[in-house]
């Protein structure tokens, strides 16, 4: 058995790293268990000629396809959207596009403003200092002055517009619609030991330059220097409890596959909106027969993804293709609820720069646009580097039938039950997606694109895993309280996207990390009476 630690964090991704770093100043004995391993910058695909091919093998976004020894399978047969994640130090920040919008102030008040779902127990103002702190730690590039947000000041200038962004900007001006350079965690200047972006253009599966912020190169070096221990290749099976119903530690499998028990005073779960309910539901005992901290019955329920409606077309001149960070702009024109529409809430448009030449060939061949035979080469040359597209990232409202459970058959390589997803896209989301597609076509027409194509929802678009252990003040309607502590287990905290009450219509990493920092701060403020 290992020595008891003060704080045990499960998962080293976006939220686990942030909470570890923040708590490090307490000088408590902090340990993080991560089921994956460190990923070396030299291992990233952009180092080699097979950089696009590896998107279909060891750097595939879908864990079922990637199937590394450090991955766990996910039964997503009953979902039109498939999970995207990565298991390693840095978690899914290794495998994200670094688009970094915050939730908006209105996102925390959806019941009050629109009469749907529930309000969050906290608000934008509460998180604002933690957003700013996280922007500094992750290194955000962007431009102050966006009229779609309260004032904020990204520490670095935005990524370049490029040909694609300029074309979109002119189109949006022509339509009179809002657009703005995205906040992104891609460094545009040298920053905190990271090199500036050199437009490798292949940001999602890791950045060989180190310009993209993943927590293995942002929070973790600082946290480790401050004394936090990070133990890799450790897959947690369950959280154990003592006779008082408090978390006593975890049982995990180490790098050799041997079962270990790690005792702890405080346990913090940071395993994302699928991994966290999986672990909690697998942590059963006489006191918690339906999974730990699940007296509400809501662990695993209210899964929210953000359905993506992608619309794209082709122009008559070469654009940027895959050169440069793939996302460069956003629009909040349709973000807030408009009673004139047939749906509530709204969406962000995120504008894509282009895709790599092989991805273009594969996607266009699958869609039947790319000719086979003698016409292949002429056909391809009208497509490559001429794509311009945008996605509506739609707010997904919570519904209890969208859920994560334990698969009765499928297990990971350690014998732990795999998560099973049951998810449908709501009527409200469908209407929102159709609205987004119609507006996107107007934008593409204004941008001079033709041959318009739609992928809705994006199949492998389950980047954002939210809502499966939500926060609230009512123990019967939520799993954790307003500062992340489980209602049922007073030394068990959750800091990842599971605790989201509603999803907003933005990429969640910025808000997930701000929440983690806020919860860490709440813990620090209450250290003397943390379990009261």
């Amino acid at each position: 058995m290992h020595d008891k630690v003060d704080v045990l964090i499960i998962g080293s991704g976006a939220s686990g790293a942030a909470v570890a770093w923040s708590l490090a100043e307490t000088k408590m004995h902090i340990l993080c268990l991560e089921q994956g391993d460190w990923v070396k910058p030299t291992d990233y695909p952009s180092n080699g000629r097979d950089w696009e091919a590896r998107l279909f093998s060891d750097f595939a976004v879908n864990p079922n396809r990637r199937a590394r020894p450090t991955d766990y399978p996910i039964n997503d047969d009953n979902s039109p959207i498939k999970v995207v994640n990565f298991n390693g130090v840095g978690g899914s920040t290794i495998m994200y596009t670094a688009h970094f919008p915050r939730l908006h102030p209105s996102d925390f008040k959806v019941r009050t403003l629109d009469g749907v779902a529930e309000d969050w127990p906290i608000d934008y103002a509460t998180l604002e200092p933690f957003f700013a702190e996280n922007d500094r730690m992750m290194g955000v590039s962007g431009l102050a002055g966006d009229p779609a947000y309260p004032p904020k000041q990204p520490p670095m200038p935005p990524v370049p517009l490029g040909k694609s962004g300029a074309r979109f900007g002119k189109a949006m001006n022509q339509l009179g619609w809002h657009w703005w350079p995205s906040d992104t965690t891609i460094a545009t200047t040298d920053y905190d030991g990271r090199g500036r972006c050199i437009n490798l253009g292949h940001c999602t599966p890791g950045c060989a330059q180190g310009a993209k912020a993943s927590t293995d190169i942002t929070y973790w070096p600082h946290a480790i220097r401050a004394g936090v221990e990070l133990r890799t290749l450790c897959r947690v099976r369950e959280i154990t409890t003592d006779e008082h119903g408090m978390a006593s530690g975890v049982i995990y499998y180490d790098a050799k596959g041997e079962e270990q028990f790690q005792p702890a005073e405080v346990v913090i779960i940071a395993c994302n909106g699928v991994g966290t309910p999986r672990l909690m539901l697998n942590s059963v005992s006489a006191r918690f027969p339906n999974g730990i901290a699940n007296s509400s019955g809501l662990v695993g329920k209210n899964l929210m993804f953000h359905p993506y409606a992608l619309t794209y077309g082709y122009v008559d001149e070469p654009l940027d293709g895959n050169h440069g960070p793939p996302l460069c702009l956003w629009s909040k024109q349709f973000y807030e609820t408009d009673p004139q529409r047939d749906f509530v809430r709204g969406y962000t448009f995120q504008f894509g720069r282009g895709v790599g030449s092989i991805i273009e060939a594969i996607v266009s061949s699958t869609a039947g646009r790319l000719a086979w035979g003698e016409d292949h080469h002429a056909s391809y040359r009208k497509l490559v580097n001429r794509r311009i597209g945008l996605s509506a990232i739609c707010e997904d409202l919570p519904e209890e039938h969208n859920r994560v459970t334990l698969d009765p058959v499928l297990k990971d390589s350690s014998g732990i039950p795999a998560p099973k997803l049951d998810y449908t896209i709501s009527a409200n989301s469908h209407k929102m997606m159709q609205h987004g597609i119609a507006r996107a076509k107007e934008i593409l027409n204004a941008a001079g694109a033709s041959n318009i194509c739609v992928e809705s929802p994006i199949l492998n678009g389950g980047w954002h895993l939210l809502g499966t252990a939500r926060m609230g003040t009512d123990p019967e309607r939520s799993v954790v309280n307003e500062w992340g502590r489980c209602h049922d287990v007073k030394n068990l905290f959750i800091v990842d996207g599971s605790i989201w009450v509603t999803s907003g219509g933005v990429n969640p990493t910025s808000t997930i990390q701000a929440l983690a920092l806020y919860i860490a701060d709440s813990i620090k403020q209450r250290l003397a009476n943390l379990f009261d």
Partner: protein
Amino acid sequence: MPNDSLSVEQVRDLRALAGAIIPASQTYNVPGADDERIFNDILRSLERDRDDVCRALAHLATFAGGAFADIEPERRAAVANAFRDVGGAPLAALVRVVLLCYYRDDRVMRSLGQEPRPPFPKGHVVEQGDWSLLDPVRARPPIYRPVDGRATKGGAG
């Protein structure tokens, strides 16, 4: 040719199909996907897709009423295009491997005006663009929705 599971017949059919999908072109000065170097790359790269490729080739042989490679070269494109409508996910996997290998070949990349190199460490140049395009947006009042009257003006965009 390196291969540890496809039969000789399957290798012949795969090569013939690759060449039917992407034939050589004098116009663009590029080889076809059945070029020896490219096809060796295809065989080496089947990996996770090997089972799907085998399924697709078996389906193709049934569809074509025999070995695809035995079809007259002039007719292969027509058969391949007809098979395209019915090949499903296994064929999509096969075609993906063909395209992955074809479009990373040095000769093909050069014909497209691309440098045959990985993105790192040289990277690429992306122009900054004209940031004055943002002036009309800067001039807008806040569009985020009021919440408790705090620092919010305007309304839905």
